[in-house]
C-alpha cells in the first residue's frame, strides 16, 4: 500500500522535479512520524494560522479605503489598497494642536530611558541576589516575588500618590519611574545568573577582578539572552502603556504614541474619520514591536529554557 501511495505522489508531480523531491521527502518523513505526530502538527499549524489572523487583518486594514473599513460583514483582505490613511494621519496631526511626531518622539524617549534603566537595575539586582551573600537576602527576594502577585491596577492609586508626591507629573520621569522596579525582570535575571557557575566568578576574583569588572565583563556577556528577553517584555509594556499618559500627565505634549492611537478612536467627535487614521497608526505602532521580537526571539526562547520558566 505504501508503494502505490509513493507512486501516486511521484506521478502527480512528474513535471516539477523540485516538488517531486519535496513530496518524496515528505513521504519518507511520514514513515518515521506516527499518526499522532502528524495530527499534532496539522492541528498546531491550524492554530498558528489562526493566531496570525489579527496581524494579517492589521496589515490589510491600514491600506483599506474608508468605505472598506466600514463594510459589513468586515473583510480580511483589502480590495483596493490605498496610502490615503497614512496621508491623513500625518495631515490630521499637522493640523491639530500637537503633531503626531511629538507623540512618537515622546515614546522613543520614554522607551529608551526605561529600557536602559530597567536593564541596569534588574541585572545589578539579579547579580547581587544570585551571587552575593548578605543579610535578609531571602526576605528581599520574597518581597520581590510577592510584588509579582499584585495586579498593576490594584496599586495604581499609591503609585499616583508617589509620582505626584515626587513632583514628577508632566515629566518623562512619570512615564519611566513606575517601570523601573520590575519584579519580573529581577526574577528572570536572578534565575539566569544563578546558572553562571560560581567557579567562574571565583576564578575572576583570583585573577584580580573586582565586582564591577566581574559584572560588566563576565556576567553581562553571559546573560545577553536574558537581557534580550527583558528588553522585549519591557519594550512592550512601556510602548503600549497608557497609564503614564492618562494619569500622570495632563499636558498633551508629554503624552505618548499609545495614548494618541487610542484617543483617535475613543474620541467620539472624530470616530468615523479617526478609524482610517487609527488603522494606519495601528500598523505603525505594531512594526517596532515586530522588529524587537524578530531581533530577540531566539535569545528569548533560550532564556525561557534556562530559567525554567515556560
Amino acid at each position, binding site marked *: 500500500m505504501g508503494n502505490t501511495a509513493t507512486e501516486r505522489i511521484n506521478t502527480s508531480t512528474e513535471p516539477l522535479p523540485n516538488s517531486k523531491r519535496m513530496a518524496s521527502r515528505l513521504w519518507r518523513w511520514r514513515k518515521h512520524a506516527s499518526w499522532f505526530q502528524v495530527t499534532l502538527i496539522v492541528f498546531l499549524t491550524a492554530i498558528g494560522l489562526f493566531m496570525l489572523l489579527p496581524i494579517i487583518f492589521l496589515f490589510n486594514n491600514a491600506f483599506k479605503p474608508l468605505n472598506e473599513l466600514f463594510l459589513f460583514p468586515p473583510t480580511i483582505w483589502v480590495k483596493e489598497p490605498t496610502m490615503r490613511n497614512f496621508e491623513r494621519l500625518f495631515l490630521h496631526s499637522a493640523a491639530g494642536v500637537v503633531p503626531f511626531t511629538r507623540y512618537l518622539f515622546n515614546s522613543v524617549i520614554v522607551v529608551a530611558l526605561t529600557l536602559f534603566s530597567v536593564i541596569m537595575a534588574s541585572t545589578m539586582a539579579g547579580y547581587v541576589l544570585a551571587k552575593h551573600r548578605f543579610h535578609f537576602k531571602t526576605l528581599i527576594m520574597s518581597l520581590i516575588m510577592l510584588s509579582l502577585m499584585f495586579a498593576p491596577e490594584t496599586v495604581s492609586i499609591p503609585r499616583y500618590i508617589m509620582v505626584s508626591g515626587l513632583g514628577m507629573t508632566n515629566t518623562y520621569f512619570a512615564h519611566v519611574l513606575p517601570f523601573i522596579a520590575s519584579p519580573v525582570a529581577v526574577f528572570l535575571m536572578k534565575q539566569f545568573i544563578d546558572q553562571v557557575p560560581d*567557579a567562574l566568578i*571565583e576564578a575572576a*576574583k583570583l585573577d584580580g577582578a573586582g565586582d564591577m569588572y566581574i559584572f560588566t565583563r563576565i556576567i553581562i556577556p553571559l546573560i545577553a539572552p536574558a537581557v534580550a528577553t527583558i528588553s522585549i517584555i519591557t519594550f512592550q509594556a512601556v510602548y503600549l502603556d497608557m497609564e503614564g499618559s492618562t494619569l500622570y500627565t495632563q499636558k498633551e505634549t508629554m503624552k505618548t504614541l499609545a495614548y494618541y492611537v487610542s484617543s483617535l478612536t475613543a474620541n467620539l467627535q472624530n470616530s468615523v474619520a479617526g478609524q482610517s487614521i487609527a488603522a494606519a497608526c495601528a500598523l505603525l505602532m505594531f512594526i517596532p514591536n515586530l522588529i524587537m521580537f524578530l531581533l530577540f526571539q531566539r535569545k528569548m526562547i533560550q532564556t525561557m529554557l534556562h530559567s525554567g520558566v515556560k
Partner: protein
Amino acid sequence: MGNVKFHHVYKYYKGEPIPSVNDFHLDVADGEFLVLVGPSGCGKSTTLRMLAGLEDVSQGDIYIDGKFTNFVSPKDRDIAMVFQNYALYPNLSVHENMALGLQLRKVAKHDVELRVNRAAKMLEISHLLSKKPNQLSGGQKQRVALGRALVREPKAFLMDEPLSNLDAKLRTQTRTEIIKMHGQLQTTFVYVTHDQTEAMTMGTRIVVMKDGRIQQVAPPQQLYDEPRNLFVAGFIGTPQMNFLQGAVVRQDGVYYFETKRLKLRIPETYSVRFEASGANLRQIVLGLRPEHVACGNDAPEAWADWQAAAIVDMKEPMGSDTFLYTKVGEETLIARTDAHTPIRVGDSILLALQMNKAHFFDLESGVSLSIPGDRA
C-alpha cells in the same frame, strides 16, 4: 618562598553542628606537592577554598609565605587556582583568558605576551590561542586553565579536582603533565582529589581527610605501608586492603589471631608491640593487602601456619596480574596472583596470609596497633 601554614583551622557552616573542617593543622613546605584526599564531603575542598580566600576561616590562622592571610582578599594572596569545571571565561579567547589575570595586575604588555606564549608553548596550546573555550575539547580546556594559572607565576598553585571531568586516558596524560610542571617550576602545589591513585602518583606528601579531620599526613609510600588507622588503610590502595575481624589469643607465649575458621600465628615483632601497648586480648581487625595474600601452592614453607582454605568466587584479570576474590567462610579475601594463573572460579585453593606484612587495628577506635607509637 611559597610555604603555607595552617594553624588549627576550623570551618563552621551555619546550622551545622559539626565543623566541616576540624582542627586542620599543617605546615606545607615551599615547593612541596601536597595532595588532600578523602571521600566527598570530607572538607578537603573547603580547606583549599579557605587557603584561596574564597571561604572565610571560622577559627584558626592561615599563613602564606609567613604572612598572616586570614583577611587578605583572594586577589592579593598571589595564588592561582585551577577548578574542576575549568572556569574559563566563555566570551574571551584562550589568549584573553590566560592574559586577563596579568592585565588586571597591570603587567606590561610585552611581558604579558611573553608569559602567555611561553606557557602556551609549555602546554602545547599555542595553536589554540585565538579560539574560544567552547571550540575546545575537555582536555584542551583544562590545559588552558592550567596555562591561566601558570602565567601568573604565583607563590602557590591550588587545584580543585582538575582532572575529574576528563576521560581516563586524558586524565593519566594530564596527570603526568602536572607532575612535570611541578618538577619544572618547583612551586608549592596544593591539590585536592577524591581519587587515591591521583594522590599516590602526584603527591610528595598526602593528607588523608575524613569528616573534616586529618587522618594521616605522610609521603605516598609510607601512607601505603603504614596506614595509621582503618580508614586510611581502606582508602588507599586498589583493590582495597582485606579486613578480618577476630580476637587476639595468647597460647604458650605466642599470640594468635583467631576467627571462627582461622587461627593464625602472629609474628613476634608484633607480639612485642602488643605487650607494650597493652592490647589485652580484645577484638581487633587484621588488615592484609591483596599482594600479601599468596596462593598457597607457591607459598614458601615458612608460611605454613598462615594458611587458610578458600573457594575462588570471582576472578579479575588486570593484564599484568590477576585478582582472585575468594571466600574464607563468609569473609571475602582478595589475593593477587600471576596473570596466567590456572586457577578458575569455583576452585578450592589454599591461601597463605603473610602475617609478617599484616596490619592490626583496634576494632573500636580503628587506630593501628602495628605502627610504632612515634610514627603513628
